[in-house]
């Protein structure tokens, strides 16, 4: 109860083929994250699953049943919107109770379920407030509360944390992960924040221009990006991509090495270069190093590595962590 399968799903808006054709299997209980650059079709895909948009072609199967033509309410899914889409004129209690009320569940039962949900989400004290009297994180929780009371087959989240500030984002991220561990319900989660994707997902789906670039576990994607797009997209700071002689020597069109896989020394190394920018975060230091013949590389050093603009440093890539790509951008 909670598996979702997309078969050859496509979506066209007017002239624009936003999603050419997608096949995807989501297993029951999985936490799947859609990532990709802005405009790549993440929200559209989610809305197709939810039934808020009609597919232009293909089939959507939920729990073994063809749901392609089913109305949103009939699919048994719950959605948490980016803007939360809370009903501003209703109290928190009514917001959470709304789907139950629509299902004509009786009063006492509704109360019980709402109170349960509120307890799980730490909202008990706020049940009688209006959404505008809540902080961002609380609103987010109400939106989730509205989703969980229905005990849906799957949750759909569309960038639910993007309106929150950094600290809150971290907290809510953990809360959602915990929720998933508690409920064990399928979740599909859209984000363009990599940290969210990496830390929350069982399975990441990387989208680009409506196409799936790669599907896999977070560490799979980090360690074995299938192509240049994924290599550049996953990991922060971005992987350094090197073309030219060095790559050719490795038998590739492009060679990729992550900032954290470059050794740094003041004395000796494979390459020598000049620091153009050094950003000290305390825990880490990120340096942009200009290496002649290679280009500017981003390198990560420990927080204690004191250095500044103009310093000369030596770099040594960890060749076991080198990524190689052919001229079509596919990993070798």
């Amino acid at each position: 109860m909670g598996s979702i399968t997309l078969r050859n799903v496509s979506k066209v808006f007017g002239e624009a083929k936003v999603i050419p054709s997608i096949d995807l299997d989501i297993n029951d209980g999985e936490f799947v994250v859609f990532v990709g650059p802005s405009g790549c079709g993440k929200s559209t895909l989610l809305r197709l699953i939810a039934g808020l948009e009609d597919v232009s072609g293909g089939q959507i199967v939920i729990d073994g049943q063809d749901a392609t033509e089913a109305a949103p309410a009939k699919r048994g899914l719950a959605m948490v919107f980016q803007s939360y889409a809370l009903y501003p004129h209703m109290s928190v209690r009514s917001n959470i109770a709304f789907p139950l009320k629509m299902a004509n569940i009786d009063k006492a039962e509704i109360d019980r379920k709402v109170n349960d949900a509120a307890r799980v989400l730490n909202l008990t004290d706020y049940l009688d407030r209006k959404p505008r009297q809540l902080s961002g994180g609380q609103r987010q929780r109400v939106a989730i509360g509205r989703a969980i009371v229905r005990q849906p087959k799957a949750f759909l989240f569309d960038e639910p944390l993007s309106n929150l500030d950094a600290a809150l984002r971290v907290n809510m991220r953990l809360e959602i992960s915990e929720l998933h561990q508690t409920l064990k319900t399928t979740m599909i989660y859209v984000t363009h924040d990599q940290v969210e994707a990496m830390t929350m997902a069982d399975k990441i789906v990387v989208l680009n221009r409506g196409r799936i670039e790669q599907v896999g576990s977070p560490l799979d994607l980090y360690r074995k990006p299938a192509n240049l797009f994924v290599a550049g997209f996953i990991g922060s700071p971005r992987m350094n991509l090197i073309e030219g002689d060095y790559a050719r020597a490795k038998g590739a069109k492009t060679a990729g090495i992550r900032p954290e896989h470059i050794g740094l020394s003041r004395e000796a190394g494979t390459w020598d270069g000049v620091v153009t920018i050094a950003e000290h975060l305390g825990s880490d230091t990120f340096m942009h190093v200009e290496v002649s013949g290679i280009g500017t590389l981003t390198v990560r050093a420990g927080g204690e590595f004191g250095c500044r603009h103009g310093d000369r440093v030596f770099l040594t890539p960890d060749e076991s962590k080198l990524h190689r790509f052919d001229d079509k951008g596919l990993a070798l």
Partner: protein
Amino acid sequence: MATTHTRSAARLMMAPSVILLFAWMIVPLGMTIYFSFLRYNLLMPGMEEFTGFLNYSFFLSDPAFFDALTNTLLLVGGVLAITIIGGIAFALLLDQPIFGQGIVRILVIAPFFVMPTVSALVWKNMFMNPVNGLLAWIARSLGFQPVDFLASVPLLSVIIIVAWQWLPFATLIMLTALQSLDEEQKEAAEMDGAGFVSRFIYIVLPHMARAITVVILIETIFLLSVFAEILVTTNGGPGTQSTNLTYLVYAQALLQFDIGGASAGGIVAVILANIVAIFLVRLIGKNLEA
């Protein structure tokens, strides 16, 4: 935003509006209050004398006064009810995908531009006239006795005419409000299993509360002083059946030229209008703050 400099500038810039409106209010008001204590008929100059509250007691004890009061409330209430319900219905309709939406909107908005006098004349003569009017012809061709609108249902007729003029305004505001409803909220409700009716009751209607408030406020302001429509169509009659307060005061002032009595009536009307205003302000205050 809030330095002493800007605050004093703000006070200075409010001044012209406030002073002008204050003068516009207080000067005629003062004179009106003064007149209201005089026996003052324009047709008998030189006979003005102080009469105390005589004008007031005559105005308030005039049986026409209570008719006028109820008629005023019925008129305002009736037009508000029609325009708000109709406006919401139209707005819902126009919000649907339909062919030629722009043109329909142009058609619907048109009555708003028509001079009250003209619309009253047109309705009275070309539609509601029981002999030559179009409605009478329709009734006759359907085999009914034509209704003599202005004689048998005078107030309703006035309400229809006025509502026709104000329906576009309500529709426009409702439509804008409807279109401002967050798409995601509607979708969320849909995901939550709400059908069209539930969505309307639980999501759309509360969202429009503010728009409805504004329509009530603006329309009330104009409806309290509906005048031309009555003057042209029914002259307040038959009897006093379509006399509202404004028309009653008009009749005193400009048919009887009893300035003293009319002034007393005017003051009474001002007081009543202010009661309505306070009531409205309460309502608005609650709905507009949020």
